[in-house]
């Protein structure tokens, strides 16, 4: 498949798809969080200083200490930052323009990365729109929506 010419020699080009099936073990902390999402509940984890990390990590983001106390947080929250995705790409949660956002759910002290379906501003209140079919993935949250 000769393409454009470059100094006389045709440029060749071939389509190449790199695919990985990735089947990842979750461990008990991430596993519990994803189990919660499947059940339409959200878990965070209490950090060393008492602040709740959501989504939960096995270790404190500041000190690195192992964390164990999972706690439930709300399914509504506040946007702490956002940017606009004008041309969505493959694999993104929405296929029309939307906001990428950081959302601090009620009861959590860190923000979750996800998308908001519609225009949004820092400080807006948003709620989870659950996917109809949930399988224990971060995309069990289909998107967030502004609470009018």
């Amino acid at each position, binding site marked *: 498949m000769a393409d454009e010419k470059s100094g006389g*020699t045709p*440029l060749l080009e071939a389509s190449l798809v790199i695919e*990985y*099936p*990735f089947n990842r073990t979750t461990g*008990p902390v991430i596993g*519990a969080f994803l189990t919660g999402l499947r059940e339409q509940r959200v878990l965070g984890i209490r950090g060393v200083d008492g602040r709740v990390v959501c989504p939960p990590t096995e270790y404190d983001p500041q000190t690195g200490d192992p964390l164990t106390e999972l706690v439930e947080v709300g399914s509504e929250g506040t946007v702490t930052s956002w940017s606009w995705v004008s041309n969505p790409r493959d694999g993104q949660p929405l296929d029309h323009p939307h906001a990428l956002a950081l959302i601090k759910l009620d009861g959590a002290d860190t923000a979750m990365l996800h998308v908001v379906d519609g225009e949004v501003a820092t400080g807006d209140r948003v709620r989870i729109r659950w996917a109809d079919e949930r399988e224990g993935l971060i995309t069990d949250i289909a998107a967030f929506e502004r609470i009018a």
Partner: protein
Amino acid sequence: MPPADTDTDRTVSEMPDGLWSMPQPTVPAPIADVAEPIQRIRVPASMHYRYTPGTAPTRFLLGLAEKKILGERDPVNGDVYVPPRGMSPVVGLPTTEQVELSDHGSLAAFCVVHIGFGVNAPPTPFVSALVLLDGAATSVYGTLLEIPIEEVRIGMRVEAVWVDDAELTTSFENIRYWRPLDEPDVPAATLQGHM
């Protein structure tokens, strides 16, 4: 204690004392009681590229479309590399002189493959081969057919089996496989260092 891995017949045992292990988290009631907690996730990743082979490989591929195997010559020691990548791996300088090589060669190394891989693998068992073409310093990879496996030996003479002319493209797949030539073997010692 972590549950046994039910996807296979492996068991998971407790770690010996003295090794750090992750403390078990406490999970709030409604989720702790769930029948099938999540333990693994499928997150496939697929990325599309428009691959460009570069100048020397392009020359090689264009040659293949004309049923020619073109190597390129080392500017210092004269060795011919095939398939060419554009640089001599010995001196790191460009190879610019193209050399048309025969599609006859000698078997420099081989392996009998019993576990197929990928959708294009031949039926197993098959012979995976490195062929040193006459005049080349490096071998090309292929499969060796039309010979009982137990008769395959290093030093045997082989030739390329090409696709029909109408199917020639800019691809190494123009060479379907290699098959024996009715010529005396070359001594294995002459093939050393040419893989």
